[in-house]
């Protein structure tokens, strides 16, 4: 097909660069500078989709972000599919592949023509609430069919091949929109030296100036645009962002800008370049120069292809050199739209008539029209369009002066294009994102930005100042004001002179009346994408949905991907009329981010795949990888979980690791435990307040285990803290709890007890920590140190010593989480790998065996040691854990948690208490999480006693062991309880002491 609607001259397209593209399986050609929409119109493609609910043919209506119909699937390959791209915003590139998204049953098949209009009438708003209820079970089936019809485009089925990134900015003035207002605002602000960001959603900056036929200083508008952009580009304090939509306005002047960096080049981005970028901008002052969208008029069959916005018709002619038809009827409520008729005529096509709804329309624009020989029908309106696949005619009738009724005879005008203009709707969206309500303005016949707490100024058409010269002047002065407020005293830039015709007042008309009531009139569409009609809105109000929010929700008005940019105001007007209210009384719904849709990937940025979340490594990580470790995620850390040898199952590996440790010596990388260095003369007092146990007398050189509670008395972390000096302690925390504990300590220090002299710093990463455990631990360590006396009585359990291990200065703590003779070696992390490897160099004769978190868990469970976060869940206090030995009630200071654990519910009998659990069948390992019951035959719901918190097969004991909580468990030693499992088994088990191995603790003291 040729570009039959393309003009031979004019426009901002490059006829020397033809671009081939595909739509709906057909090949077409456009030019560089086209949008997909302008190229389709150039090729005379009328029907580009079918409507969602009624399957009516639809064409292109608008030329930018407000387009409701031309919403396509893009992408040449599976991985580059993009759903729901607005053709008016997609620049054409060579090889572009697009598909309609709403072509059911097919673009060319007139489904409704076949089945008649009754089925259409079966779909009033809310019909699904009223039907599909019987029988109850059938909804599932109904829903399957409803879901078949859902959605527009489709998601790709393959992962994205492109990347996205973020760029953070801070600026003095952010100007949104680079039309006449934004450009002159930018000039004022930039000249004053303020940091300025000017963002515009289109490929070319200039906005309406790019399709405007007015002269600025007697020169074409585009020349002024070029000059202005050149000047702005010359300032290093100015950032120009074309193809960048400011889509969200958040608190404290934080705005997000979605830049499409490569969508105009090809199906996917070039290597090393992100496809799209999200700019995160903190602006001192924001100037909204977002302009206004033209508002179409609502009339019968106004959704036929060929019905367009007047300004869009002008844009296609002037900017893209495309005349989207032959014979135009223009309906308008205002003078401004007369340009469209003039543009059409200047393009050499026929203007059938200008239908002006105002009987009083007599002024300069009308005089010009008459001079051009154009027919004006005053005080009249198009009440319905005629045609099937495209407009073939317009039915015109007289209007009463209030616009409420049709009068006089009807006449039919033959035409293929029906442009309408109901005036302008300021693009107030961004101004509403932080909760400000827009305010109706009768002069502007639209909502203007309301009061806000943001540092925001508005200029030009968004503020109801629609004329070009007003926009330029307003922009210049608001731009200067913004710069001044941001600390850069500025004068308004001089703006070019615009020769214009005076305009007479516009008429507030939204929905053109029809001789029939709306319920019986031809469908008058308010929201095209969601197929909401004037009749539907009236029906909603008739049914009692009177709030505009109810109307919106009941009819789905504004819920499309265009978020009702074209239709919302008309919908409110229809609702207001139906409720006998004014539009401000009816109110508006709230605009929310995004202004236009934003790619998930762009919002996620580079925080995906390998960079989704930090991966933290210990200094010995490489060794673990080399030695076949399987890893466990603990917080952000990767910890070795176990070290399987070839062909070993997990259980076999664990058995081997456990036995090796108990029989000889094992080693664990414990570097991930949180470590907090505490210095200051009150460090000891501080510890006494935040731990439940006593710290007053712990001598230098000794270590102690401590429990930490919240004010409610519930355990939240634990660990060993060592006294390094009178004024110096090193605390250890759980791996996952480290950051939280430090912040918790600081909270108390800084807010409650600032008088205590303590300084706390994390040293988690500074020390590499390796735990040698097992009867041969001492022998092995002795081989690597000559300055630490390892004698059992001089370096005792819970002591720490300083010395040298494998040639590296170390702190060695004789503490044990396994119940074995155990030394925790700490060296500066840069030497961790060296010491670790040296231990292995010497360890072979002791069969030194690396073990991971799982073996550690088993070994400690054999000893009945808890893991905070596994055996506790924020609802158990130290007494529940049977750890009264770790609570010192008579400390002078009422430590954190003390009062909490004395509350009525915390001291009752029958609390869930931590006990040991032994299955009657020693080979059965209870699943962690299994719930105990006394009577497994009890009907549902079965009263439960508590769950298994830890459960393992213990190779050392040759049987399963478990820890769990049981109601009143401390007084039920020896009782039998039952664990009904998901697979139907019921496991019998006995309540026992939590310590399964070496109850006297002899092994750690050897």
């Amino acid at each position, binding site marked *: 097909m040729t570009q039959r609607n393309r003009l031979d001259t004019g426009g901002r397209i490059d006829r020397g660069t033809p671009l081939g593209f595909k739509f709906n399986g057909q090949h077409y050609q456009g030019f560089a500078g086209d949008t997909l929409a302008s190229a389709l119109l150039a090729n005379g493609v009328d029907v580009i989709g079918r409507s969602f609910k009624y399957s009516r043919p639809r064409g292109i209506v608008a030329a930018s972000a407000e387009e409701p119909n031309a919403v396509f699937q893009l992408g040449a390959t599976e991985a580059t599919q993009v759903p729901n791209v607005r053709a008016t915003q997609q620049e054409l590139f060579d090889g572009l592949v697009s598909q309609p998204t709403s072509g059911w049953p097919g673009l060319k098949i007139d489904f409704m023509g076949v089945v008649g209009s009754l089925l259409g009438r079966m779909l009033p708003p809310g019909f699904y609430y009223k039907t599909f209820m019987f029988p109850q079970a059938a909804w599932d089936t109904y829903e399957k069919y409803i879901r078949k019809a859902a959605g527009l485009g489709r998601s790709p089925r393959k992962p994205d091949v492109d990347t996205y990134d973020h760029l953070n900015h801070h600026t003095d003035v952010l100007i949104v929109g680079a039309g006449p207002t934004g450009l002159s605002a930018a000039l004022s602000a930039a000249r004053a030296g303020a940091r300025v960001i000017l963002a515009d959603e289109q490929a070319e900056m200039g906005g309406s100036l790019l399709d405007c036929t007015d002269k600025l200083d007697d020169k074409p508008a585009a020349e002024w645009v070029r000059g202005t952009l050149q000047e702005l580009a010359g300032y290093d304090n100015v950032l120009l962002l074309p193809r960048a939509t400011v889509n969200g306005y958040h*608190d404290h*002047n934080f705005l997000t800008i979605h830049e499409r960096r490569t969508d105009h080049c090809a199906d996917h981005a070039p290597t090393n370049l992100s496809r799209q970028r999200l700019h995160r901008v903190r602006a001192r002052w924001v100037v909204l120069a977002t302009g206004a969208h033209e508002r179409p008029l609502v009339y019968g069959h106004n959704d036929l292809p060929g019905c367009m916005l007047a300004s869009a018709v002008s844009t296609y002619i002037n900017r893209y050199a495309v005349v989207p038809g032959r014979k135009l009827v223009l309906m308008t409520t205002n003078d401004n739209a007369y340009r469209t008729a003039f543009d059409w005529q200047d393009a050499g096509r026929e203007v059938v008539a200008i239908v002006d709804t105002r009987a009083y329309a007599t002024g300069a624009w009308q005089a010009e029209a008459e001079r051009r020989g154009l027919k004006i029908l005053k005080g009249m309106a198009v009440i319905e369009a005629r045609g099937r696949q495209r407009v073939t005619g317009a039915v015109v009738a007289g209007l009463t002066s209030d616009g409420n009724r049709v009068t006089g005879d009807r006449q039919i005008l033959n035409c293929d294009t029906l442009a309408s203009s109901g005036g302008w709707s300021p693009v107030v969206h961004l101004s509403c994102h932080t909760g400000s309500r827009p305010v109706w303005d009768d002069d502007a016949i639209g909502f203007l930005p309301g009061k806000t*707490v943001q540092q925001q100024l508005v200029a030009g058409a968004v503020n109801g100042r629609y004329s070009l010269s007003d926009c330029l002047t307003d922009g210049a002065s608001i731009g200067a004001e913004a710069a001044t407020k941001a600390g850069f005293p500025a004068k308004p830039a001089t703006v070019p002179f615009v020769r214009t015709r005076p305009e007479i007042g516009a008429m507030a008309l939204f929905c053109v009346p029809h001789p029939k009531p709306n319920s019986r009139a031809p469908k008058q569409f308010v929201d095209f994408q969601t197929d909401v009609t004037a009749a539907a809105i009236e029906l909603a109000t008739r049914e009692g949905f009177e709030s505009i929010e109810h109307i919106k929700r009941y009819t789905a008005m504004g819920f499309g991907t265009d978020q009702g940019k074209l239709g919302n105001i008309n919908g409110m007007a229809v609702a207001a009329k139906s409720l006998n209210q004014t539009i401000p009384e009816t109110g508006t719904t709230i605009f929310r981010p995004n202004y236009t849709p934003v790619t998930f990937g762009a919002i996620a940025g580079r925080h995906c795949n390998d960079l989704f979340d930090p991966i933290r490594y210990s200094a010995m990580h490489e060794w673990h990888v080399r030695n076949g470790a399987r890893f466990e995620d603990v917080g952000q850390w990767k910890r070795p979980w176990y070290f399987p040898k070839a062909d070993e199952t997990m259980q076999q590996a664990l058995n081997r690791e456990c036995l090796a440790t108990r029989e000889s010596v094992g080693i664990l990388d414990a570097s991930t435990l949180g470590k907090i260095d505490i210095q200051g003369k009150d460090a000891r007092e501080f510890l006494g307040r935040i731990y439940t146990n006593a710290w007053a007398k712990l001598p230098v050189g000794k270590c102690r285990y401590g429990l930490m509670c919240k004010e409610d008395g519930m355990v939240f972390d634990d660990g060993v803290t060592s006294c390094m000096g009178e004024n110096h302690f090193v605390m250890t925390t759980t791996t996952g709890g480290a950051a939280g504990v430090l912040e918790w300590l*600081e909270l108390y220090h800084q*807010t409650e007890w*600032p008088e205590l002299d303590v300084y706390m710093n994390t040293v988690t990463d500074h020390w590499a920590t390796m735990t040698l455990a097992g009867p041969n631990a001492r022998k092995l360590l002795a081989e690597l140190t000559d300055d630490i006396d390892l004698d059992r009585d001089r370096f005792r359990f819970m002591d720490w010593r300083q010395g040298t291990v494998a040639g590296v200065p170390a702190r060695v703590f004789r503490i044990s989480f396994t119940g074995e003779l155990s030394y925790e070696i700490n060296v500066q992390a840069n030497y961790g790998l060296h010491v670790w490897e040296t231990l292995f160099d010497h360890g072979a004769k002791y069969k030194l065996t690396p073990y991971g978190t799982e073996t550690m868990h088993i070994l400690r469970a054999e000893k009945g040691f808890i893991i905070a976060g596994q055996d506790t869940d924020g609802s158990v206090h130290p007494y529940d854990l049977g750890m009264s030995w770790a609570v010192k009630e008579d400390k002078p200071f009422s430590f954190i948690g003390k*009062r*909490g654990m004395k509350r009525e519910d915390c001291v009752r009998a029958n609390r869930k208490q931590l006990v040991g659990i032994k299955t009657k069948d020693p080979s059965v390992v209870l699943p962690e999480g299994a719930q105990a019951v006394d009577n497994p035959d009890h009907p549902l719901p079965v009263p439960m006693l508590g769950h298994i918190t830890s459960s393992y097969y213990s190779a050392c004991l040759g049987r399963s062991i478990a820890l769990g909580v049981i109601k009143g468990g401390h007084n039920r030693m020896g009782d039998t309880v039952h664990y009904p499992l998901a697979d139907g088994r019921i496991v019998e088990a006995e309540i026992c002491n939590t310590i399964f191995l070496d109850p006297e603790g002899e092994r750690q003291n050897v």
Partner: protein
Amino acid sequence: MFYLFCPYCGEHREEEEFHPRGQAHLSRPEDPDGCTDEEWGDFIYFRTNPRGLHHEIWVHAVGCRKFFNVTRDTQSYEILETYRMGSAPRITDLNDKQQSREVQA
């Protein structure tokens, strides 16, 4: 997204550097052991939770690690002042907004 003035760093910083830590100016009872369950429960759980002016604690977690106070309108999210631990708010009524500027510590 908030932009908070850290009274210790003397600069506005992005919300991502901070954590909110709830209502400010709560103090731990002098004698917890002498509190009734009700008094203790009130201390740890019950909050004013106002719509409007709220004094709250934030910590400059990724930054100087200092806790400080913020007076904020919980409806408009306007920050009316930020001030150091241990000092009192200057704004205790939304009508005092005009004097609202962050304390430039």
